């Protein structure tokens, strides 16, 4: 996610309630949080961090609309122009018969499109390994990370003081 060789100071918390309080405190103290990692979605974290709503669903709508048009127009072209066949005495252009496939292609395009978009944005793909701060943040630890590139020892002390005052169970630094 981040550029190579970023020095990170991070604190691990045992509980999401303590984490939420700590994030609030960091915002009050105007500390610039690089990222927060949790093993599961924590309710109320996004508004405190001030994260914008994802625009992934707008992309999803566009993919879906493309799917609708693709399927419907393709079938219309096939059954009226390219290869007209009479099925069960129905007219060539039989819209009700096209609807199930139109629906399926809409869902397929929207879901696959959103998955691919999401993976691309997050820099994830088969075979790509991303640096992790600590394996336990995917298990039972809640993490607040600060970017400490070129930070003075005063700043580092302030951050460490913040971690100990908000109840972090562990404070580590790592270059990723």
């Amino acid at each position, binding site marked *: 996610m981040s550029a190579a060789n970023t020095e990170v100071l991070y604190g691990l918390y045992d509980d999401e309630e303590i984490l939420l309080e700590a994030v609030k405190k960091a915002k009050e103290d105007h500390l610039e949080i690089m990222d927060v990692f949790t093993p599961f979605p924590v*309710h*109320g974290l996004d508004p405190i961090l001030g994260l914008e*709503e994802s625009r992934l*669903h707008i992309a999803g*709508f566009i993919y879906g609309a493309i799917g609708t048009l693709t399927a419907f127009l393709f079938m219309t072209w096939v059954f009226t122009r390219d290869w007209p066949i009479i099925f*069960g*005495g*129905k007219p060539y252009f039989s819209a*009700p*018969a096209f*609807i*199930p496939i139109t629906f399926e292609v809409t869902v397929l395009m929207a879901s696959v499109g959103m998955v691919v978009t999401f993976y691309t944005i997050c820099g994830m793909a088969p075979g790509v390994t991303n640096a992790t701060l600590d394996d336990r943040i995917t298990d039972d630890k809640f993490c607040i990370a600060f970017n400490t590139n070129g930070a003075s020892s005063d700043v580092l002390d302030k951050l460490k003081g913040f971690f100990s005052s908000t109840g972090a169970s562990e404070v580590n630094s790592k270059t990723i």
Partner: protein
Amino acid sequence: MNQFTLEARHKSVLIGAVILGVLCLGLTFLFYDDELHSRFWSNYLHNTVFFTGIAFVSLFVLAAFTTAYAGWHTVFKRIWEAYAFFLIPGLVLFLVIIAGIWGHFHHLYHWTNEADVATDRIMLGKSGFLNKYWYTFGTIIIMGTWIFFANKLRSISVEEDLHGTTDYAFHRRIRRWSAAFLPIAGFTSAALIWQWVMSVDAHWYSTLFAWYATASWFVAAMALTIMTLIFLKSRGYYQNVTDEHLHDLGKYMFAFSVFWTYLWFSQYMLIWYGNNGEETIYFRTRLDEYRVLFFGNLLLNFATPFLVLMRNDTKRKFGTLVFASVICFFGHWWDFFLMIKPGVLHTTHEALAHGAEAAADAAHHGGFTAGFTIPGLLEVGTMLGFLGGFLWFALSRLEKAPLTPSNDPYIEESLHHHV
């Protein structure tokens, strides 16, 4: 403010609506009707079915959510308990239709004409189910059962407020009654929809019609719940019902609008593909003579809620939510209009023409018929009357207990609901 009182001003608005409704029904009966009064009777049946169904769905969602261990709705579940009590006036309204069948006051159902049934193989074959005994006792027994369950869920819930303890014995009793109600609700609602609505077209049948009609009721019930809650919030009640609860109600309205469309399309496509004459006639009539209703139905009940409610924030803003609720509520009333009116008009033409060929002729060249081809002002007035009566009854029930239950095991979860 946990205790609701219906202000005198609002009560007079609701009573005024009821008077308007009675006036519209009276005007329809006296001046704007054919000699069989089919417009009056079909309006009466249409609104009775629609509002009774909303009461039934309210009871059903209470039972379903309780059985599913859902907690988010607990804060406002008294609204649905109050809605469910409209089943009692609903039964009274149906008794009038039943009396009409026995006394031959109306010609809503072709199968009530014994002379026609005797010579008609299809209606004769269905006469084991479509007869006035089944209609009468089916309606009374099944609606009586629903009222029994509505009363149970409500009385235990109110009792829990007073005597509930942390062993949650009352909630477990509610859970048992809810679970018992679900299979009963599933089968009985279908049976009543066949009798009340589908048998208007006595020759026609569709196996998924019951689900289709129930989905229609469901969306209407959610729309009415949203509008009532937002109104009560604006009067200072239910401040503990937040955007989060309304967001979930909006999701239900959105999801069941799509579900309704799925059933609408499935019913249409199977009949269109099967191309079986006695089934396709249903849609042939509606496509030829009720085009505005037929396509308006899709516009109101699918396109509008689908496009308006798709986004996250439109389900959290009162303006868009109320807009979609009004459209959905009216739209599903319109949907029931389309289920009932063409069949009644056909039966009326047959009864008036005293002969099948003349009837077929009249039915297919009828052109515009006031109160049937599209809903007129009298129909809208009648609907407002029933709506006023429904809300008057429900809000009077709402006054009788605290708005938010206490001692319910899920109340804390519901108060802190977060989507």
